[in-house]
């Protein structure tokens, strides 16, 4: 017996230590981390060293096990670099299921690819891509590389569990070191543990570690701010990029840096100034002046994105835009600002985080959290906000791309953080007014007249501006959810107001608008607005708050002219529900062989406690049921 134990031990000893081959056996992954995971980060280390205000170095080393085909992207190393950064020392090792080393990454396994994104015409982004092309699951890859970074407007943001639906993490470590004279600002997010700090020879270091993070199931309507999971965002106090120096310990400082970058870039050609003068002569209302000049800018320019080096932060000169007629968000906003300046109107170059799915920035952590630039024109009353990259955007309208969030104004006194306007349930409207003539076969002719405002009109506005005749028709078909119909005629009109409006009219021929079975007809009077969001209800208790991002109001008023012979056998009772999330009403009335259907649904926005999820699900379920209630007629 003793001998057996000895030999088993010896065997283990030999295989793992003497041979030195077995390093990352997949079998060593704890069971709870395997569950629902497609890949497991076995170990990851990121060291970010700030050498001085203008240069940093990143050293990354990680080992990840790929469990199945859906995790295959983790077997590829992708490192982005550009004119301001340099990647060196890429190394990689491939291990099989047992953790035995089977290959080392060769030079020929690393490719260098252009990284110009679809939205950019030209930029300097490139990728180093390292790949083994191996697929016997599970297997493990180990990668490391170093990067010199001279784009010091931001340091490192570390989100070890950003892909929590697919990736489990055994261990991930992050350490950032800065000269004590510069010091570091950082913010710990979403429940990460406190930093371990040390100071040696004038270098301050901060480190964090996470362990054993299993894959998480996504909760519907989870708040956007928890999207990337626990993490740390770090930022400099002072920095230097391509000879430009700045500070960012306050929003004021960061806004000041935009002023530095924009300095002397607002000079316009004489012709442009003359045109501006001519356009605004005779207009006294400052709002009308801004509007006129915004439309002038929209007609004169288009969005072309070219990002090279500091050009990622700094706008092209206004003169360049005036001559070429194009630029990116920075260039066009700066151009618009210059135009307004020539008309003696003050405006502020405004940094913002754009996107309809983005959480607001961390307002208590001044740092470069922006991806877009717009323009703010201060007025006596409400400020005017101008999206300068769109040639079709209504004057003063921000849509859900930039509305309802914090933005950084670069004022002459430095940066100021303010909120952009949001669109509530009174701004986002959908009104449908429908007249239907129903015949004894259940077929119908319908005339609809609809009005959409705010973010609910965005798709219609874009259909007009982007689609041709045929595409518009297909788009109309896709917007109407009636089982069988022909679109006889349609029109879409758009009014460009601060809260824009789209008016849509349709003529429809509907086959079996009411389903006819024998002598009866079954009709769902809610012809076009059936609510479809059914929320899954699970036994698991809800972890996160519930965030409803958009508010809106829908009203439907449908009149059916019924066949002369039809007698109502059954009709739904009125429904009236009021909750914290909104209000729903629907009602059917019959008079003079006419059926009137009325529906109103107000959806509110906001963040609600985790416990309210079940109520929301119940509310939506009730709406869904009421929206499907039928009228039964006998012929």
């Amino acid at each position: 017996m003793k001998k057996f134990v000895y030999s088993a031990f010896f065997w283990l000893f030999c295989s793992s230590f003497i041979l030195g081959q077995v390093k990352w056996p997949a079998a060593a992954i704890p069971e709870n981390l395997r569950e629902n995971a497609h890949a497991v980060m076995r170990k990851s280390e990121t060291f970010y060293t700030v050498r001085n205000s203008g240069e940093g170095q990143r050293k990354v080393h990680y080992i990840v096990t790929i469990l199945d085909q859906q995790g295959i992207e983790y077997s590829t190393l992708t490192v982005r670099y550009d004119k301001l950064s340099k990647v060196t020392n890429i190394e990689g090792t491939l291990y099989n299921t047992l953790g035995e080393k089977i290959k080392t990454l060769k030079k020929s396994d690393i490719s260098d690819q252009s990284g110009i994104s679809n939205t950019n015409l030209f930029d300097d982004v490139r990728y180093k891509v390292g790949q083994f092309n191996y697929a016997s699951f599970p297997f493990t890859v180990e990668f490391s590389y170093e990067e010199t970074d001279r784009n010091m407007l931001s340091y490192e943001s570390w989100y070890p569990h950003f892909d929590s639906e697919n990736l489990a993490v055994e261990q991930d470590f992050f350490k950032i070191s800065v000269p004590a004279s510069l010091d570091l600002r950082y913010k710990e997010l979403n429940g990460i543990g406190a930093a371990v700090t040390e100071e040696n020879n004038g270098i301050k270091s901060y480190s964090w570690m996470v362990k054993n993070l299993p894959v998480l199931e996504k909760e519907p309507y989870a708040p956007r701010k928890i999207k990337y999971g626990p993490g740390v965002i770090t930022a400099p106090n002072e920095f230097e990029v391509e000879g430009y120096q700045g500070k960012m310990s306050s929003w004021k400082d960061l806004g000041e840096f935009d002023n530095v970058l924009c300095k002397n870039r607002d000079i316009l050609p004489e012709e442009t100034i003359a045109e501006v003068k001519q356009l605004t002569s005779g207009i006294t209302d400052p709002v009308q002046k801004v509007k006129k000049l915004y439309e002038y800018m929209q007609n004169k320019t288009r969005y072309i994105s070219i990002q090279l080096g500091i050009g990622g932060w700094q706008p092209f000169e206004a003169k360049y835009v005036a001559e070429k007629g194009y630029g990116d968000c920075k260039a066009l906003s700066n151009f618009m600002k210059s135009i307004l300046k020539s008309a003696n109107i003050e405006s502020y170059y405004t940094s913002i985080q754009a996107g309809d799915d983005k959480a607001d920035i961390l307002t208590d952590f001044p740092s470069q959290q922006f991806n877009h630039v717009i323009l703010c024109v201060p007025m006596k009353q409400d400020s005017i906000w101008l999206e300068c990259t769109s040639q079709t955007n209504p004057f003063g309208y921000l849509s859900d791309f930039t509305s309802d969030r914090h933005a950084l104004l670069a004022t002459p006194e430095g940066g100021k953080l303010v909120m952009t306007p949001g669109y509530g349930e009174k701004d986002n409207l959908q009104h449908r007014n429908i007249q239907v003539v129903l015949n004894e076969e259940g077929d119908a002719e319908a005339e609809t007249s609809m009005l959409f405002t705010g973010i609910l009109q965005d798709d219609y506005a874009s259909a007009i501006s982007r689609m041709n005749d045929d595409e518009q028709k297909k788009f109309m078909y896709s917007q109407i959810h009636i089982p069988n119909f022909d679109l006889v005629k349609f029109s879409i009109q758009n009014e460009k107001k601060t809260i824009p409006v789209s008016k849509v009219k349709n003529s429809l021929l509907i086959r079996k608008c009411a389903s006819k079975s024998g002598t009866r007809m079954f009709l769902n009077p809610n012809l076009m607005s059936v609510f479809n969001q059914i929320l899954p209800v699970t036994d698991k208790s809800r972890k996160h708050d519930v965030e409803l991002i958009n508010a809106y109001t829908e009203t439907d008023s449908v009149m059916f002219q019924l066949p002369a012979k039809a007698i109502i056998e059954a009709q739904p009772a009125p429904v009236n529900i009021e909750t914290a999330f909104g209000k729903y009403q629907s009602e059917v009335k019959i008079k003079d062989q006419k059926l009137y259907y009325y529906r109103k649904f107000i959806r509110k926005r906001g963040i609600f406690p985790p416990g309210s999820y079940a109520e929301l699900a119940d509310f939506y379920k009730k709406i869904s049921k009421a929206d499907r209630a039928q009228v039964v007629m006998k012929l």
Partner: protein
Amino acid sequence: MKHYSRYFLQSTLSVLFILLFPLSNILAQEKTVKFGKIDLADLQMKSYPKDTSSEAVILSDIADAYYRYSESSGLQVVFNRHRRIKILKKSGYDWASYQIPLGRYKGANKERIENLRGATYNLVNDQIVTDKLDKASIFDEKQTENLTYKKITLPNVKEGSVIEYTYSTVSDFDTSIPTWEFQKNIPVIWSEYKVQIPDFYHFKMIHQGYEPFFISTVKPVNISLDPTTTRYEGKEYRWVIKDAPAIQEEPFMTTLNDYNAKVEFEIAAIIPPGGLNSKYFSVTWEDFTKTLLEYENFGTQLKRGGFLKEKVNTIKAAEKEPVNQVFAAYQFIRTNMKWDGNSSIYTSNSLKKSFENKTGNCADINLMFIAMLKELGIEADPVVLSTRDHGRILPNYVLEKKFNYVVAWVKIGDNSVLLDATDPFLDFGKIPVRCLNGSGRLIHEANADWVPLSSNERITKTLILNFDLNNEGQMNGSLSISHLGYGGLYARKQIFTDSKAKYIESFRKKHPTWNISKFEIEKLEELSDPLVENITTSIQETASIAGDHIYLNPLLGEGEKENPFKTTERKFPVELATQIEENYIATFSIPEGYEIEELPKNIRLSLPNDGGKFSYFVSKTEEGKIAVSSKFLLKKPTFYAEEYSSLKEFYAQIVAKHAEQIVLKKK
């Protein structure tokens, strides 16, 4: 020699799947568009009458290609293009940026660009204002070692602008003449391509599309390749399509590439005067076969299955029946090789290397499978094909680049079967739906031939429902859903990628009013059996009670809810890939104290040309239960545009019937 020129002639005169009637030469006309000379009417145009909301219109797109001789590089192909576009809407601004791909091969042969010019024209106070493309607006993007893009963006583009650009590319690839696409996703008023080819270059030309040529001519010309040398006999081809409408993706299409009007060229032979140093490229299907079999990354690999010897011996020892040996090899390759998702007829590596990596493209995997079968002494050969999203194969044109996929043709006894080892969930004997695209070409030294790929397989879904309805409108009972044919494949794939739990969860999400007490999945691993889902559930709110009546949709909302064919017209065929079959067989018991008042009417429909059928029957059984049967079958994988309206109507009837209800009344 004679053979090739005959082929050559035949090809240029061929007309594909729709007849293109070139108008006679009398009507033919010239269109001269000079750079910088802008027609005022074009600048004044507010919208294009034939497509009033079009974002832009290509006023003219004119190109020519010809040969020239260079001391350093030899014969080169020069391609000149001049395109003029009217911008009508702001969304059309994207047309003011353009990129030209420039290839390079092993550093030696390359394409370069010459005489790139561009300009924007605007009407300002009735004056034409010109803005030229300047150097600052030209960029070079190095995509890979072998591919660079020359990118341009034109200045001062506005609604109403006319823009134009012109350039020449000079290519060292003398066997390749650029393809010309006459149609774009915006209308093209005049698209013209002129090609001059010396007679010693033999090309096959392929025209396709649904738009007729306005002009299509061939005339003999004398070609001088270099001022100092003699003139060569040659031909000049000219094609014009006028007023081509915008072409756009529609549902149930294979690929836009199959419908777009274009002309392509494939080198057949180079036969210099005197016939010396003639070079023949794969021209006949015999040559095609021979070429492929000689390729290091195709035919040669078929003999390199030796590394599998050990496994082959194990199989031989364990299985005596050939069919079992094939199956064992099939399973072995499928469990050991993961498809990387790439389609190709060429291996990316040696078979041995791919086997070590455990992954490869479809050629790596299926040629390995064939090599293994050959080691087993089983007759197996490759069938090359083009996948549905890659476009169709035209049997009259021998074009290697048209093929992008390879499967195994295996002879077992007197039968042959097509197999594809890239998909672990495929039932033995099937090939993936992506491969069901016309015919494939069997590559065999002696018996090369066409092999039909279209299968009679279906996507079949059968629901059997058995429910008791109580007097509160609640339904209790069970249903089984079986997925057959490709339906089984899809369901299994879904379950394996999502996990069983997630699959069931997503079913629950789609049925919020169902209180499911049991959900079992059967035959998940038995790929040749139907996959069966057995569900026990109670359902609220499906039957509605009003007064003395209960109304019930007998398909429990599982029927067809929306017509997939929406628009009234259709230009292109509807491509469904497989036959589609859906069956519902339901039995309901009715609550005590209720009787049937009304049942939906029975119906039987069929599509013309045996395209499909639908039947719906409801009856009362002897036990007082209600029996419902609904069956529909689409028998053709492709419906022509002329059949579209009857297909749409067919679906309309099904949707209407599936919405009907049973009425019960209190006794």
